[in-house]
């Protein structure tokens, strides 16, 4: 008896067409029946009432308040987002995150750390078209930070600077213009373009004060004044300033980029070829003058 039904079922399967969208029923209650306005279900005046502008569909314009100054015209100027398209953004990275990166071997702390290293972890995204100019180091994790690193960021507060210097490290704040940022974000792609490394441009006038301030460890500030400020900060936050001169990794810690330099160890004007693993340097006088300017 069972086999009879199975035979029937199988013969049906052989006969019937393949299941597709056009021969299956829709999910229950997914299709709503169209309610046409007839009779007691929205009939007669179809929700428009009697006479008047409502039934005659002669409505006032949207926002009109029968003569008084309408709400949408009361405020001639609302400067809430004035100049918002010119303000620079610095997406944050906390000290805790940085510590995690280093301890999980995503960043090598025995070499100088900069934007390129952080972006190469793949966990930090920077979008220069959205007026994002670099890394802002936040103070979450300042109390547990204990690594000696040489780091270069674009913005850092006093607490962060103190935390890094207390641990025996070095922090610098530097500016990268949009063009340089695009080169740094995807270095492989940049080198495949076959163009020489560009010069890093100077900060705009409203940022120049920040980057020339020794208290903020700006890259344009006087190094002597920076060492003074290190002492001041140590006294302010109450820790003894570690002597970097006696540190074995002194060279690594004091390695800083030239204001026109984008990558560590590479100068503007050089062409780097990844396929041949070669660096080409220009010889022409004019080019040399342009890139050394």
């Amino acid at each position, binding site marked *: 008896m069972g086999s009879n039904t199975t035979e029937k079922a199988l013969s049906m399967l052989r006969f019937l067409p393949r299941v597709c969208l056009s021969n299956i029923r829709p999910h229950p209650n997914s299709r709503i029946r169209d309610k046409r306005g007839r009779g007691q279900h929205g009939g007669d005046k179809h929700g428009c009432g009697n006479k008047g502008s409502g039934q005659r569909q002669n409505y006032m314009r949207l926002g009109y308040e029968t003569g008084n100054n309408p709400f949408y015209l009361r405020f001639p100027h609302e400067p809430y987002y004035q100049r918002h398209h010119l303000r620079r953004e610095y997406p944050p990275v906390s000290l805790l995150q940085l510590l995690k990166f280093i301890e999980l071997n995503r960043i090598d702390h025995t070499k100088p750390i900069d934007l390129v290293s952080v972006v190469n972890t793949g966990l930090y995204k920077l979008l220069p078209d959205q007026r994002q100019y670099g890394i802002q180091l936040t103070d979450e994790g300042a109390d547990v930070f204990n690594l000696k690193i040489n780091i270069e960021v674009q913005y850092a507060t006093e607490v962060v600077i103190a935390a890094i210097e207390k641990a025996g490290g070095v922090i610098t704040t530097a500016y990268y213009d949009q063009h340089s940022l695009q080169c740094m974000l995807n270095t492989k792609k940049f080198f*495949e373009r*076959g163009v020489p490394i560009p010069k890093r*441009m100077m900060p705009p006038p409203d940022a*120049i004060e920040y980057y*020339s301030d020794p208290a903020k460890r700006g890259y*344009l500030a006087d190094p002597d004044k920076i060492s003074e400020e290190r002492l001041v900060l140590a006294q302010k936050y109450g820790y003894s300033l570690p002597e970097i001169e006696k540190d074995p990794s002194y060279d690594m810690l004091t390695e800083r980029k030239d204001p026109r330099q984008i990558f560590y160890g590479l100068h503007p*004007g050089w062409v780097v070829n990844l396929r041949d693993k*070669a660096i080409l340097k220009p010889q022409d006088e004019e*080019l040399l003058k342009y890139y050394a300017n």
Partner: protein
Amino acid sequence: MLRFNLFRKFVSFHSRNVAFANSRNKSTAVDIEKLDQDTTSIDVVDDELKSREEEIQRKRNKSRLKESDRNFLFEKDPYPEPTRWHHGTLKYMRRLYGRYGEASGVDPAICWPVKEELEEAIEYEQVAYPFTIPHMIAEAKRKRHETEESVKLRQEEIVKKMEKIEQMKQDVYNRIKNKETEAKAAKERKERLIEEVRMHFGYTVDPRDEKFKEMLEKKEKEQKKAMKEAKKKAREENIMTKLLSKKADTVKKDVNKQ
């Protein structure tokens, strides 16, 4: 699986051979090295061999892909022979060099900016970044100082004015008080006059009557005259006192001189 086993066997056989050779000819180890070098230095330039190899490679290619696509897959220059107009542009050729290096056959000198590009770049920089760093820093500092100065001046102004505020308040109150007292005095005077006139008439007359008004005017005039005379007197007295005081001063001075 079979292929892998064969490969392993081949490798082991090869290694054993080498070891055996080494153990046998230890004294002549240098000779073997020389032989290796000799064999590598000789380049077999056999055109026939090359063409045969190429044919074999062509037959091996069963992908039915376009030449350019296959080259792209194998990370080679997709168009060794330029076919489109943009294969001759600087940008494309620089990218070829960037991606494929020397194998692309591009002269790396084109990577650097050409004369026009260099001129444009220099001009752009001069327009976009006209100031030097010390100049920019000085400007920023100056601007900051200016704003701070103006704010400070304004604050000082406000402080000065705040000192006077109590006095100003007092002045206002006094003015109000004076006005009130004057108004009161004037009212009183008028009331008195009305009373006088009423007394004069003997019976309660409506102040709006004409007669009443006439009397009132008379009385007002008399009052004004009296006030004027009083003022004059007061002024004369003032002058007298001043003169007297001056005389006293001059007398004192003479006395001092002497």
